[in-house]
């Protein structure tokens, strides 16, 4: 789980905590332990930034979203409940919400088209841990499940989840009734669930 290549800028006081699971770290973070928070940041910052950048397509905006999300996690630390899901899922949910807010603010204010900026995709390094191997396999499976959907279903899911568009905006853009958009979303997600099997075993 601990990748020594990712230690740039890490404080030495955080090192002993890297053996702990996220849920154990959250107990320390609850007591305002910044070192424990740093370990959680190191574990999940790339995933958070990847999602934010996929949604915002702008480096500065994605950075703001990730910063807001981590600070929100810090400020809301008293409300974490391990029985409600993993820390990673919680964090990525916050990132998603913040990115949607940012995209919708931007669409009202600027109404402009943001060009994709030149951030290179990270070259996939060889997997170093079992968790990395599992995560990469999960990514392949989810991508495959999305790709197997009819275009009309995968498109509304991607426009909503990654594009931050409301169902009404999607309906207008596709010149399709809102009810049809809802139906495509529901059918697409239900099919993905079938393809993925029981995803109850969510990776930490």
């Amino acid at each position, binding site marked *: 789980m601990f990748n020594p290549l990712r230690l740039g800028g890490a404080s030495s006081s955080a090192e002993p905590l890297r053996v702990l699971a996220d849920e154990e770290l959250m107990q320390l973070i609850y007591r305002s332990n910044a070192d424990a928070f740093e370990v959680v940041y190191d574990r999940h910052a790339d995933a958070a930034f990847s999602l934010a950048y996929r949604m915002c397509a702008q480096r500065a905006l994605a950075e703001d979203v990730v910063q*807001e999300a981590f600070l929100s996690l810090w*400020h809301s630390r*008293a*409300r974490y*409940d391990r029985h409600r899901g993993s820390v990673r899922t919680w964090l990525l949910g916050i990132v998603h919400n913040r990115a949607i807010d940012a995209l919708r603010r931007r669409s009202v204010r600027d109404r402009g088209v943001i060009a994709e900026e030149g951030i290179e995709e990270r070259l996939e390094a060889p997997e170093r841990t079992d968790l990395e191997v599992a995560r990469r396999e999960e990514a392949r499976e*989810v991508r495959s499940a999305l790709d197997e959907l009819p275009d009309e279903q995968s498109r509304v899911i991607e426009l909503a989840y990654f594009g931050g568009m409301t169902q009404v905006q999607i309906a207008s853009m596709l010149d399709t009734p809102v009810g049809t958009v*809802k139906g495509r979303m529901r059918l697409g997600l239900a099919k993905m669930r079938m393809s*993925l099997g029981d*995803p109850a075993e969510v990776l930490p």
Partner: protein
Amino acid sequence: MSSQESMRPPGCEENAAPYVLGALTEEEHESFVRHLASCAVCREEVAALQLVVDALPAVAPPRSAPSPLKRQVMAKVRAEAAAAGAPAPRRSPLRSFSWRPAVGVAVAMAGVIAIAAIALSGGSSGPANKVIKAQVTAPRASALLRLSGGHAELDLANMPQTEPNRVYEVWVKRSGAPQPTDALFTVTSKGAATVGVPGSVSGVKEILVTSEPVGGSRVPTRTPVIVANLS
């Protein structure tokens, strides 16, 4: 899910999928959360679909978070940890039910709904779920107070940065003078912050925010920069 169609109550707008995908407007979202309190079919559907949506971030092409970002985040976190003197935030028994991870909550929905239903039905001593626009002294800044399940969360935008060696502090005012909380915070470079107000808002008339020296104060030393009136 087709077997569930006949069980859908009248007025069900089949918003479970748009809900978990974050494709509802704020008004639709609030309306659907209220609907969930009374619709077991939608609750079940949300829980099932949320599991798929939770996996969607894996599809995003992998990228490395920029190093300066970590420095910015950790500088704020360490400053706030030092300012707080590392005390544990207060946690009420209901608090653990109130965190809302995303537009789609799903797995946690049953507990949230139970509390929301109590608040909406008037069975709670605190205010029902609603959003209050707070008064803010700073031009362009905005502050929304979200009430849910007897607790409150401040959502701030375009707030000025705190001065050196100062932090924002949240106060709650019931009948007497404002009482301090352990919610001390700073804002992002864009002036944004989301801050949970510790404890229940039962009986609270106002929630205030002032700028205080690092470590916070026991009584406000400056006039409030945010005032949210709950009464």
